[in-house]
Every structure is written in C-alpha cells, then in structure tokens.
C-alpha cells in the first residue's frame, strides 16, 4: 500500500484514506460571463493527461478532510511531494 504524506496531518498515511480530486491549479475564471464558449469548455472539461510528472489535487477524506496538492508520477505512481492548497505550484 502506498503511503501518502498529508501536509496538514504532517505524517504519512495509507492511500485508502485519500481520494483523488483531479488536476490541480485549475483556476476558475474570475468573471465567467466574459468567457467564450471555447474558453469555458477549456476551463470545465479540458485536462492535462501527462506521462510522468503530474500536479493533482488529493483529499484526505478519511482523515483530516482537507484538500491538498500533490506531484505524482503517472508512470511509477510515486508521489514526489505534497503541499497545502493555496501554496505555489512546485
């Protein structure tokens, strides 16, 4: 079982306590009504699908309940780092 470091609990916890919540650092446009259909579609649906290093949101759902960001390698499934939500991209 993979151990994931929760930046809020500050310890490594078993992966089944966590839930993946998709790509990280997708910012909602500040003024949605100014967006064209294509821009809005890109915001809502278009996601990166890299081979290798990927920024993801995870949630420690069966623990402290917080969302945080993680850098995971999609090939090896290794977590490079995790950091609190709101912190700059690593």
């Amino acid at each position: 079982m993979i151990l994931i470091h929760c930046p809020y609990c500050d310890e490594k916890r078993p992966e089944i306590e966590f839930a993946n919540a998709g790509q990280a650092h997708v910012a909602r446009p500040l003024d949605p009504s100014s967006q064209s259909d294509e821009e809005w579609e890109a915001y809502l649906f278009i996601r990166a699908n890299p081979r290798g290093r990927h920024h993801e949101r995870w949630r420690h759902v069966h623990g402290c309940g917080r969302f945080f960001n993680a850098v995971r390698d999609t090939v090896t499934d290794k977590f490079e780092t995790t950091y609190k939500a709101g912190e700059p991209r690593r």
Partner: protein
Amino acid sequence: MSDALFRNEPVSSTPYLADGVSISLAAPLKRYSLRARSAEALETVLNVKVPQKIGATEGGIACLGPDEWLLRTPADTAVPTGAELPVAITDISERAIGLVVEGPRAAELLMTGCPLDLDNFAVGRATRTIYETVEIIIIREGEDRFHVEVWRSFAAWLWTAFTAAASH
C-alpha cells in the same frame, strides 16, 4: 408518547469476549462537532483548553483536522451553543455510537482492517481513519483500550467484522 421512546442500539449491549480482547458498546455520550478557524476561538466559547495539533486530545476534545474537533462529553453536560460567534458547535450525539475495544490484542484486532500502525499510536491520540470500507474515529484511551466511533448505520456491520476477527 414518550413511553414509546427508548434507545434502540444497532449492536448487542452484551460485551463480546474473546481471547485477549473484548468488544463492548460504550455508554451513551453527547457528541459535538466543533468547527472554527482557530482553537483560540473555541477556547473562548467553551472555556476549556482545545488541542491545536491534529490527532491530539485534551479532556474529551479530539482535534480531527485543522478546523475540526470532536467533543465527547457525558450525557448530562451543558455545552454552549456559540450562537452569533464565529464558531459552529453542532450536536451530533446520535449520529455515531461508540465501541470499546479492550485487551492486550486490541491493537491487533483493529489492525485486521485498519491500515494504520496502531502499535506506534500513542495513548491519548485520536484520528479519523477507515476500517475495511467503513469510516471510523479511533481514540486510544489506554495502552490496551481503544474507543471506536462509528456511524450508527455502519455499526452493525462493524460489530460483525470485529467479532469475526476477534474469534480468529
């Protein structure tokens, strides 16, 4: 009408005794979910010390997350409502029941379905975690004593899982 109201628990009130471990239903408790941006805000309202570190407990209050605490208190205690203050104090007494797992094999029993390393889980620590697929809150009250909070609807299944594991 009140004659018809009685506690109907989802698990047996008779403790289950097995080799090195016993599982029993905890006495009814008042439970409160405490939410606030800071522990200090809650300390002002409740007038008790509130733990800051996730996993720590202090006099019946367990810190479950950066802005979330669980208060367990005897059934006849009055707790301030915190109305009009920047805190949320919600009575969740009947959402969960408590199971007490006690004995030298208590940690071993919980680890049959819980992936945490409970051998290195200090006395006085509390955490939300998972047993198989059921979310639970584990509070280590003593070297050989764990208090397990589980949602009422999951309790019958958890009781069956615990007693089955204990009999092996």
